[in-house]
Every structure is written in structure tokens, then in C-alpha cells.
């Protein structure tokens, strides 16, 4: 039979252990949407062009001490694509390009996040995951750099895709002399520290 005080001590220390465990479990970081960007760079008749996706939701669960448990995903709002011209922005949502009527979102979900060899602790990671655009999914991998400052953390990464693999630019637009096949997607996600 356990004494009352012993029981209290056991319960109290269990809570303490649970509390510690909770603080160690990564909580989703708060994304600063105003400072974060997802941009797209490509070449049109060899002219470099940049566009951005103005609306996206990113979710990053990241704990420096346990990168293996980190989760990262980003959902991109396709109609928010901005080439700098209202007319072209509308044209690019059509069936030949993004086909927004059927595929209003693109997404990236990270499957593995591993600390990069040689990078100072907490600053470089190798990310692998699945990118889905216009209903097609492909594996991507890229290096991710993480910077920590007073306000929070910044996550930067970029990777190249082949637009034809996602059927972006069909019919007469398959001509890669007009719009190059290779497209670089770059993201810059700024998080603000909540309690950390």
C-alpha cells in the first residue's frame, strides 16, 4: 500500500516528466506570411522572368535537437500566381497552364529532413519530399538553410523542376524554345518565435 505522500510525489513527478516531454515535442512555428515568399524563375525566349505566388500556407514543425521528427509542408494557392501583368496572370490559370479549375492548389510535403554533413549545427539540412502540381506528383530533394536570429528562424530553399513533367504549358506551349522546361522554385519562409 503506497502512502498518500508517496502517491502525491509519484503523480507530481509524472506530471513533471510529461511536461518535459511536451516541451521537447516540436510545436508548429508561427509563419510570418508578410515576410515569407514563394517565387518562381524561368526563361522565356532566353529572357529571365520571375513570378511569385502571393498566397500560400506553410507549416513547419521544427525542433533543432530532433530534426528527424520535423515536419514541413506548404500549400500554394495557384490563383495567387503573379507575373506582374493582370492579363497574363489570368491566362496562366487556363487549362493549358495551371488549369486552376481542376487544380486550385499545389503542395509540397517533406518526407525526410536530415542535417547536412559539414554544416554547423542547426543551419543546413537535406530535405526530400513530394511536390504536387496540376495533379502530378514528383520527388524533389534540395538543401535547406536555416538561420536563427532574435525574431525567429528563416528557412531558405530552392530546387529546379521540369514544367513539362507537370504538364504545365500544353499544346503549342510544349515548345521549350518559347518557355524553357526548367523552372526554379525558391522559397523563403520566415517564422516568428512564440515561446522559444
Amino acid at each position, binding site marked *: 500500500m503506497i502512502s498518500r505522500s508517496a502517491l502525491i510525489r509519484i503523480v507530481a513527478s509524472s506530471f513533471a516528466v510529461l511536461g518535459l516531454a511536451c516541451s521537447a515535442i516540436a510545436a508548429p512555428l508561427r509563419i510570418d506570411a508578410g515576410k515569407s515568399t514563394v517565387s518562381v524563375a524561368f526563361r*522565356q*525566349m*532566353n*529572357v*529571365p*522572368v*520571375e513570378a511569385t505566388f502571393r498566397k500560400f500556407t506553410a507549416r513547419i514543425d521544427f525542433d533543432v535537437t530532433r530534426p528527424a521528427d520535423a515536419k514541413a509542408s506548404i500549400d500554394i494557392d495557384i490563383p495567387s500566381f503573379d507575373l*506582374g*501583368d493582370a*492579363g*497574363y496572370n489570368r*491566362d*496562366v490559370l487556363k487549362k493549358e497552364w495551371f488549369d486552376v479549375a481542376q487544380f486550385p492548389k499545389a503542395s509540397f510535403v517533406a518526407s525526410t529532413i536530415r542535417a547536412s554533413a559539414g554544416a554547423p549545427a542547426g543551419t543546413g539540412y537535406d530535405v526530400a519530399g513530394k511536390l504536387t502540381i496540376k495533379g502530378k506528383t514528383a520527388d524533389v530533394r534540395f538543401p535547406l538553410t536555416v538561420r536563427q536570429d532574435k525574431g525567429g528562424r528563416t528557412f531558405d530553399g530552392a530546387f529546379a523542376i521540369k514544367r513539362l513533367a507537370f504538364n504545365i504549358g500544353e499544346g*503549342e*506551349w510544349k*515548345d521549350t524554345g*518559347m518557355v524553357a522546361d526548367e523552372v526554379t522554385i525558391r522559397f523563403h519562409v520566415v517564422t516568428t518565435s512564440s515561446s522559444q
Partner: protein
Amino acid sequence: MEHYTKPAILLHWLIALLIMVTFFLGLTMVDIPGLTPTKLKYFSWHKWLGVTVLALACLRLLWRLTHAAPAYPIEMPRWQQSAAHVLHALLYILIFAIPISGYFYSMAAGIPVVYLGLLPLPVFIDPNPMLKPLLQMTHYWLNMTLASAVCLHILAALKHLLIDRDGIFKRILP
């Protein structure tokens, strides 16, 4: 009667031809609805032509500054000589102002020019959503001014050729 120098004559007709092509390409390309490969090609060709006109305009001006144009005959009324000088000066200004405004319009739209698809040309301003429509209007209205000036120029030239028969037109013929 004294003629223009051969380089001046060559540059005159070459620039005139390039301007005509560039102008009509410009009118056509903006009327193409939507986004088509043809439209993108026309825009690129239009810009390459415009840059070429600007380069030739520089040569033209340099030549003119170092090789005086033939004087007008004394018989030509003073008011006509002044009008000619003003119109020609306007044309010189426009063959610089128009390609420059177009070039800045393209930069403000975030589209640098890659000459002939090979040579990236310098970028002087960042993409600028506020300047873009202003530069577009400027480019358009300068072009309409050029169209009027060219019409006057051609009419005046034909007057000298067909009505006055004073030999003035022949000075610019190859």
C-alpha cells in the same frame, strides 16, 4: 544641288524601314488576345528592332554632328526652312525617346531585353508596377507623335518632289 553624304542616305532609309516594321509589329502585337507563342515572339522581335533603331540613331546623330547636312537652296522660303529644321529635330528626338521609353517600359514590367535571344542587355531599373503604366502611355503617345511627324515629313517631301520640283527630294536618294 549638293546631296546628303552616302552614309547619311543609307542610315536615313535603313532607320525609316526599321521604324515602319517596328511600328506595325507593335500595333499588331498588342492586339493579339491572350497569351500565345506568336505574341511573345512579336514582343521579342519588336524589342530587338527597337534596340537596333536606337543603336543606328546614335550612329546617325554622330554622323550628322560631324558631317553637315547640305544647305537649303536660297529660293526655298525661310518659313519652310525653319519648319523643316523643327520637324527634323523632332524626328531626331523621337528616334531616341521612343526606343528609350520602350526599353524602360520593358524593365518596369520586369522583362529585361536579351538582344537576339543571345545578349542580355543592361537593366537600369527594377520592376516597378507604378512606373509601368506611365511608361506604357509615354511609349504609345510618343509613337503617335512620330506617326504624325512622319506623315508630315512624307507629305512635305512629296510636295518638294511633285509640286515644287526643286530638287530637294533628290538629295536624300541613293
